[in-house]
């Protein structure tokens, strides 16, 4: 079975909510829309206090090419356009809407009928990209890179295939898994739309072998589209990393930065993104909701919720049985790469794939011991780096050495720290080194 070639680890899967069907979450009383829901320039708010909005009304327009617009996911009245705490822990510009009723913009098709690509022969690549851009779609696996930018390869680079990232290699998370089981056809049409947008004739769906039901269903449904191939993958973290997935599925490796994934001819889109693309192009629906996994060992009802963007996390937790007594840490995303939250009153965003509640015992780090140079971090690194060395030179603030040792190639997957027998905070130091070195490189090229 296929997988990526270098490194990797296998954390306990803990997919507690895999059997729990997607439920519609309740409407919040108040929804908060951060203008920073994607990588790139923030959106600029176009509403003011007191404005009436509906589901699908534009709240913020894209702040540049690498940016995305933000739409309201609720109907009601704008009560605040001001900074608010978001999941990153920063106070940043956001629009707050007090919810009244549930009125939708008339342009949105709310029926659940499947629209196939054959039903819409007039669609061409340019129109599809334009619709994706207008709908504010970003990478929904967590990276939140604006999707339309990925679909416009820089001059000289040509796409050869599209790969759907259905790996969901983060432990605990099951949102993509459930989406595949419940909306396989929509995802396939979404993939066809992406293929048409970049003008390629080959599409792959990479699914890890721990989701045999999804592999079976998608393979069956994909039979009607000979250009789409489902590729089962051996379970190994971080297979959902873009570079690792391309390596696993088509056996090509993205060269070191500044090379881009497109240099291998592959364009990777997450399952959730494909579903959102389907809805945007076929149903005219901007990105206003998504599936999020709410999970944790102490949580009463680990679930997959289809929730409106802007809903506070605290409300989603209430719907899954409430915050457990012994909560120690709440993580936005999965346990390997997710961010620990400062507060539960922050809203979910386009990139919120999961919410993991850890009890206080799980939440604490073990005591750090001396490095015994066992080289297990070197074996685990999927980028072929030497984490023990990168961590040490970052600790010593030797930025020149850090750059020489390719610290900017680190994808921050955390495999090294996960595997370290001495419980050393390797990635903490590597992050410090990586961001400093990237700053130095930027300053140098600006001269």
């Amino acid at each position: 079975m296929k997988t990526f070639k270098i490194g990797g680890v296998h954390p306990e899967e803990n997919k507690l909510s895999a059997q729990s069907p997607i439920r519609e979450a309740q409407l919040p009383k108040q929804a908060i829309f951060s203008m920073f829901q994607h990588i790139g320039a923030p959106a600029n708010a176009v509403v003011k206090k007191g404005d009436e909005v509906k589901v699908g009304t534009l709240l913020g327009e894209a702040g540049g090419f690498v940016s995305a617009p933000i739409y309201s996911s609720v109907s009601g009245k704008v009560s605040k356009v001001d900074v608010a705490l978001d999941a990153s822990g920063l106070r940043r510009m956001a629009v707050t809407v007090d919810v009244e009723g549930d009125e939708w913009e008339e342009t949105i098709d709310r029926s659940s009928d499947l629209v196939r690509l054959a039903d819409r022969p007039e669609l061409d690549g340019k129109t599809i990209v334009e619709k994706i851009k207008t709908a504010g779609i970003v990478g929904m696996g967590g990276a939140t890179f604006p999707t339309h930018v990925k679909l416009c390869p820089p001059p000289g680079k040509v796409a050869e295939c599209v790969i759907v990232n259905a790996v969901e290699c983060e432990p605990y998370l099951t949102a993509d898994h459930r989406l595949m089981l419940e909306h396989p056809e929509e995802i396939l049409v979404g993939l066809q739309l992406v293929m048409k947008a970049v003008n390629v004739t080959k599409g792959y769906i990479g699914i890890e072998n721990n989701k045999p039901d999804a592999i079976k269903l998608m393979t069956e449904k994909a039979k009607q589209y000979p250009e789409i191939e489902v590729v089962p993958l051996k379970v190994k973290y971080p297979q959902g990393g873009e570079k690792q997935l391309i390596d696993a599925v088509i056996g090509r490796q993205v060269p070191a930065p500044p090379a881009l994934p497109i240099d291998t001819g592959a364009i990777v889109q997450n399952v959730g993104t494909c579903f959102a693309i389907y809805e945007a192009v076929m149903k005219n629906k901007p990105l206003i909701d998504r599936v999020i996994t709410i999970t944790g060992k102490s949580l009463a009802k680990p679930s997959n919720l289809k929730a409106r963007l802007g809903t506070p996390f605290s409300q989603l937790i209430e719907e899954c049985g409430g915050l457990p007594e012994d909560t120690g840490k709440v993580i936005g995303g999965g346990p390997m790469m997710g961010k620990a939250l400062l507060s539960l009153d922050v809203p979910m965003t386009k990139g919120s794939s999961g919410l993991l509640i850890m009890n206080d015992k799980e939440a604490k780090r073990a005591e750090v011991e001396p490095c015994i140079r066992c080289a297990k971090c070197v074996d685990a690194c999927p980028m072929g780096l030497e984490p023990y060395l990168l961590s040490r030179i970052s600790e010593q603030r030797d930025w020149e050495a850090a750059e020489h040792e390719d610290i900017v190639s680190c994808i921050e997957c955390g495999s090294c720290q996960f595997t370290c027998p001495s419980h050393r905070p390797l990635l903490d130091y590597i992050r410090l080194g990586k961001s400093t070195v990237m700053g130095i490189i930027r300053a140098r090229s600006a001269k």
Partner: protein
Amino acid sequence: MNKLIVSLSPHVHGSDSVKKNMYGVCLALLPAMLASFYFFGLGAAVVMLSSVAACVFFEWAITKFILKQQRLTILDGSAVLTGMLLAFNLPSNLPIWIIVLGALFAIGVGKMTFGGLGQNIFNPALAGRVFLLISFPVQMTTWPVSGDLDYIDVTTGATPLSIMQKAILEKNPSVLNDLPSSIDMLIGQTGGSLGEVSALLLLLGCIFMLCKKIITWHIPVSIIATVFVFAGLLHLANPIYANPLQVIFSGGLMLGACFMATDYVTSPMSHKGQLIYGVCIGLLTVIIRNWGAYPEGMSFAIIIMNAFTPLINTYCKPTRFGEIVKKEAAK
């Protein structure tokens, strides 16, 4: 609500620990240790116990009274392991005071002067052994014959290694007829240090460590393969050199290849580096055994390559992601 803990990812850990690895190696050594008790009797047990006790004591005393550290490091298993490995490198009739001196050198000079666990350049147990070998050459090379269970008054005899060296010195291949058969050497009917008796049980321990992912195959396989090929070529060229099977089952080769050279702290970090390190140890071992002053070259070979480990680490980097493509494109 109680306060939330905020820290950077990853938020989970694979539950591996220093203790698990150290005691895992100790466990892998257990069968060979019991075999040494069986073949050498009380003497082996006395050597083993005094070596482990002395190593743990010196580690405790140095951290407490000289370094004045609060953290208790003797429970992490590394001192116990050093003690076991040192004992495996000693003959079973060695006086206790010499063993204690060896332990003091191993832990005190070999490990703690460099800064303790993870900082030492040379394998502490080997540093202790080489120190004793140079300081007490007579006691260290008087080997009780396997099967003689007395500690105080033992019969001593020639080891396979001294027979092999004699054959080369006298240029007389018939001397090699005195060697025990390969099968006997594999199972343990030979004289030598505690850890030289049963190549088979040491190999089993090595397989256990490989299964538990405590070590990777690169170092043991590259050492054993290199010695086998090099010794085999010599044997083909001139019959005064012993049969390669007897060479790999003799002396401390299995112990060195599986347990001493694979020491985390003193071996290279990348697989490429580990292979270079292993091949060099293999070559040096055969060279020292055949043409050096001492019959056993394994411990010197490992110590010499320990010194090259930082150099190997500097020049042998793991294959970076994307490099494979570059090479393919260049073709």
